[in-house]
């Protein structure tokens, strides 16, 4: 098909989005962009160029939705008019759809799927790119992690030297890629009290990118993140430009961070739990600093944000307080477990495992999660498993050593929620751990009961 003129292609695509919404086919967050990319493939590049303040791209396996929301909060507080994509529409079509609505925006801020990042970097010529982390995720969809690392490296090499690369200094693979770029800002955790001294099971990056020797870790924070150095060639983590000098975790209530930035210190009270959110806050702070926002603006703006969709949401159902913690890979799931273990009551869990495209069809990853920690000391009082692969999750816990009388398998999600609410009624606390599509299903069940807004209304 020949490329249509821009105005015509754009209005046809917008019309398709409105039609889709009218037909009740969802929020129209991707259909217009999908159509636009067919009608006029160069449209994304043209629309990106027309945004006066330029484009900011954020990518990584974990935390991009939360981080984009934190950056958005800081930009909103500074009075900048921003166009952004919404959670779940982070491929080319989602970015194109958002750009269709970019009139009047001063800046574009997009969270981007890690496999789509190289193509979107080439198309949108970003002013700032934030590279957060690379964990093994959905092997069947992305092929192997190594391949993704190589594609990111090539994309950074092609980037305009004047563009700023923000990167996580604690992730050796990401740091090695980003440090080659002439204009970069690093971030990381400096507080030694929150680290551990050894890598968890099946950590992803344990060899030096230069010489192949084993990396040495002075401190491990999450998965393969931490204070690393190569024992052979001397390649090592740099001291980050934006760094958390103090991390105080307060269970599910949130945390306090002392952050040093080149523009001055920030004392941050964050309403998001866990060290993965410490990293998200650091990524957001580094990105905001690179966009010339002042520390006095950034701190209060970040402090106001609640968790992004499905990441540590709390809902009251009858007498039970339900906390939802999304996890779609071992690093995220392990972090959720650490956060739950900071609570002092017995744990009642509802684990929802799906294996659809957005979850990854290979559920092997659940065996790399340290669910055993929940069984130590009898902390796990009851477990209900559900979703397309409920039985796989049941076997994961059976072979972790869970007694059969604490385990229920209920494949239907609404029935599983009822069973889990019943089990947890003595203490009044239930933790729901879904994969991505299972979260959507779970939220739909809650919406049916009038408890949360539906997905595309989430901002």
């Amino acid at each position, binding site marked *: 098909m020949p490329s249509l003129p821009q105005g015509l292609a754009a209005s046809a695509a917008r019309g398709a989005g409105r039609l889709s919404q009218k037909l009740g086919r969802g929020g129209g967050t991707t259909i217009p962009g999908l159509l636009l990319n067919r009608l006029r493939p160069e449209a994304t590049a043209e629309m990106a160029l027309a945004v006066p303040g330029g484009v900011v791209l954020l990518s990584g396996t974990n935390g991009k939705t939360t981080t984009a929301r934190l950056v958005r909060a800081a930009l909103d507080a500074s009075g900048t008019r921003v166009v952004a994509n919404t959670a779940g529409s982070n491929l080319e079509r989602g970015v194109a759809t958002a750009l269709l609505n970019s009139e009047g925006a001063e800046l574009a801020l997009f969270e981007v799927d890690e496999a789509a990042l190289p193509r979107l970097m080439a198309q949108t010529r970003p002013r700032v790119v934030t590279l957060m982390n690379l964990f093994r995720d959905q092997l069947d969809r992305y092929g192997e992690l190594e391949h993704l690392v190589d594609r990111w490296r090539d994309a950074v090499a092609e980037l305009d030297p004047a563009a700023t690369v923000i990167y996580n200094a604690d992730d050796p693979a990401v740091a090695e890629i980003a440090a080659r770029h002439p204009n970069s800002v690093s971030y990381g955790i400096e507080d030694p009290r929150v680290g551990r001294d050894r890598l968890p099971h099946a950590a992803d990056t*344990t*060899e030096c990118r230069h010489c192949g020797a084993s990396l040495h870790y002075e401190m491990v924070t999450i998965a393969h993140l931490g204070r690393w150095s190569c024992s052979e060639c001397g390649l090592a983590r740099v001291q980050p430009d934006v760094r958390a000098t103090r991390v105080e975790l307060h269970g599910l209530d949130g945390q306090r961070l002392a952050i040093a930035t080149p523009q001055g210190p920030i004392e941050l009270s964050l309403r998001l739990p866990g060290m993965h959110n410490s990293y998200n806050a650091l990524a957001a702070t580094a990105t905001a600093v690179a966009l010339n926002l002042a520390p006095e603006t950034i701190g209060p703006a970040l402090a106001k944000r609640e968790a992004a969709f499905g990441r540590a949401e709390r809902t009251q159902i009858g007498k039970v307080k339900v906390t939802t913690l999304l996890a779609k890979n071992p690093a995220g799931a392990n972090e959720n477990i650490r956060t739950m273990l900071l609570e002092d009551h017995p744990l009642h869990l509802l684990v929802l495992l799906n294996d659809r495209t957005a979850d990854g069809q290979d559920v*092997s990853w659940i*065996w790399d999660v340290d669910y055993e920690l929940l069984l130590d000391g009898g902390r796990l009082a009851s477990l209900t498993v559900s979703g397309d692969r409920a039985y796989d999750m*049941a076997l994961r816990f059976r072979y972790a050593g869970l007694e059969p009388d604490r385990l229920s398998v209920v494949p239907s999600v609404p029935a599983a929620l009822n069973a889990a609410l019943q089990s947890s009624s003595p203490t009044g606390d239930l933790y729901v751990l879904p994969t991505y599509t299972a979260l959507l299903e779970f939220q739909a069940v809650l919406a049916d009961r009038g408890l949360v807004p539906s997905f595309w209304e989430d901002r």
Partner: protein
Amino acid sequence: MSTGQPAVRLCHLYPDHLNIYADRGNIAVFQRRLEWRVLSLEVVEVGLGDPIPSDCHLYYLGGGQDRDQMLVAEDLVQKADPLRHAAHDGAVVLGVCGGYQLLGHGYSDADGRRMPGIGLLDLETTAGSSRLIGDVVLDVTLGGQTRTVVGYENHAGRTHLGGGCTPLGHVRRGHGNNGDDGCEGAVAGRCLGTYLHGPLLPKNPWMADTLLGWALEHAGFGVDLEPLDDELEAAAHGAAATRAGRRR
């Protein structure tokens, strides 16, 4: 939480490098299914540069990323003799994914580079242009019994067997060794290889018990493994087989 006398000694080869396809799950199945019968498993971990003991009863090789598998291959071919001797004497060897390829003669990639294997199984692997991915259902005959085995495959390699081994199973759903000949995995004596992960053993407890039975026999225990309550395993097996049928 180990109970009972150490009955089976398992050598886990390269746990730091070959571990990405839920290999930990297969080890856990061996361990728990012995413990539930008041026997126990001793695990000997062997990494890069460590010598391989020849006195284990069960040897396990899992799957890794390309770069890790290459590192391992160079190390393994130099020190595989004790493993060959143990296999010859009746020890059980199980290779999954990359571990399966390493048990063969070698792997040739698209650029003609060759990664050596140790030749315990008479098979050859070459890189294909696409990955073979999805749910798998097999008919497997082991120890005189034929059963259904379920799992998940994700591999670029195309494996072809020579005359020195037979297929582990015949494909009912999925791709198998190469997507062409309807065969999956390989067996020669007590040495087995397969692309099935997910992991392999939790949903196929019969296979786990067959391998444990052989390992116990090699260890000199004349025990028959008493049956366990495998209701959950059977339900998981059935659900996986049904889903594989639907996805086709």
